């Protein structure tokens, strides 16, 4: 990746529409390395679509998106090697953890990324062990993901991304469907990740979460435009 002067993500004038219906309208923002950014806005304002664009799953019809100074578009992601490096560096945690887990047990979920990365067996075991310990998943390692509770699934979903050690973590509605205790725990955990220098971008409807975690809060209105930001 090229020299990016601390701007890990840079979106300029992004517009996106589904079948002619606008979903994002002239969205521009930058995210600095190690920054924590929250997106707020009503349902259907385009937060999830914006996250898809940031993850290279959708491409803006107008405007540009750069990751570490490199333009991310259909053409650059056609390069399989670049796409793999990009996906290793940008970890996406879905709103619905159920959809993110596809292996037969939690251990395989955690191992999936590191195994693909071609890490040595000891490194894989170390990563799985560390992440399992961090997220209190040790007792769940041999259980099938679909037998877990909502909070446990969320922890596994976070864990399977963390074992790849991405530089940027993107979380779509991280507190959705979690009980109060799990929410508190996740907030503390995200604060730890932020403190360690990870760049975190998340969408939420929870003003308290945004205030307590984010360095900046960006709001998208129902007209799919960026309203402004709060620090």
């Amino acid at each position: 990746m090229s020299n990016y002067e601390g701007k890990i993500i840079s979106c300029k004038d992004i517009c996106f529409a589904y079948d002619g219906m606008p979903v994002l309208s002239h969205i521009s923002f930058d995210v600095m390395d190690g920054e924590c950014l929250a997106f707020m806005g009503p349902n259907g304002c385009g937060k999830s679509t914006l996250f898809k664009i940031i993850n290279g799953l959708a491409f803006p019809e107008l405007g540009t998106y750069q990751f570490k100074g490199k333009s991310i578009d259909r053409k650059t992601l056609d390069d399989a090697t670049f796409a793999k490096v990009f996906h290793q560096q940008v970890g996406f945690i879905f709103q619905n953890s159920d959809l993110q887990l596809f292996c037969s047990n939690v251990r395989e979920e955690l191992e999936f990324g590191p195994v693909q990365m071609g890490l040595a067996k000891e490194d894989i075991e170390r990563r799985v062990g560390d992440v399992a310990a961090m997220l209190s998943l040790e007792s769940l390692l041999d259980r099938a993901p679909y037998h877990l509770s909502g909070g446990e699934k969320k922890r596994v979903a976070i864990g399977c991304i963390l074992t790849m050690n991405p530089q940027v973590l993107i979380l779509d509605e991280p507190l959705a469907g979690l009980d109060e205790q799990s929410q508190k725990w996740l907030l503390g955990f995200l604060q730890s990740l932020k403190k360690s220098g990870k760049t975190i971008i998340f969408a939420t409807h929870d003003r308290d979460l945004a205030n307590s975690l984010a360095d900046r809060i960006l709001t998208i209105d129902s007209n799919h435009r960026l309203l402004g930001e709060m620090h």
Partner: protein
Amino acid sequence: MSEDILASQSNNLKMDPDRENSAGDFVLLPDWMDRDIVYHPRKDRDGFVTKSVLKLLSVFSRFRQNSRVRETRISVWVKFVTVLTIILLDALATNMFFVYINLALVLVLMVTLDSKSLKPVFFQAIIGTAIAFIICAPAVFLGSGRSAIIISSKVFVSVSLVGMLGYTSPWNEITSSLKVFHLPDIMILTFDLALKYILLLGDICLNMLTAIRLRMVGKNESKESALSGVLGNTFIRSREMSKDMYDAMVCRGFEGQYIKKKLHLKKIDIVVFVFLACLMALFIYLELDYAGSI
């Protein structure tokens, strides 16, 4: 992973979610997480995930387009009956003239379609016709070229009409049209639910494939295991969803009876039926005329 390794790491890293934590209660991150690595992925042939995602996306886009179909003035059940009748008459026709009339009718109807619908309908019809012609090709060499042309024309008419019905009518209304043929309402409900769950379960598959795609950051030695995971999870979800659906129906008073609303006839529908009656009369006249000429 041995239990000892886990236990030793747990002492340093653990942050118990069952314990109330304050803002200052941070988890200690392992050293490998602090390091930025220069990652060089290994090459892999993993096009199947991307291809599966793209294929599913195109199917869903077709489903979603169908849910936003522009309402035509003619009732869907009338279109459904008309299409079935024309296909039946066309299949039974032995007179070339009737087949050509239907062909002309289909081409006129195609002109009224918008460009987004016209393209797929026309190409589907052309592909169907080409396959039919290839199958009939030996007949041409055996001196029955007329049969090959008639059959190909009939295929073009039938495929075009079905395509046009599909592209101009919401599928839930097409299933409702089955009431005309006195199909039990519960069977129509089953068709409706099948369509709904194709979309819902397909959406689940798509999301899981996307998750795999995002995590396929290197060489995957066991692709089939990831794919079977998607299928297995989708199967489990489908069972859960069907149970939830049944419970929801019971909660809403479902006792095995499902009553679909009656179909209504509009003025334009009567015009369509008059046209259909004329076409049937023409068919009978031409067939009798053809039989008399033999």
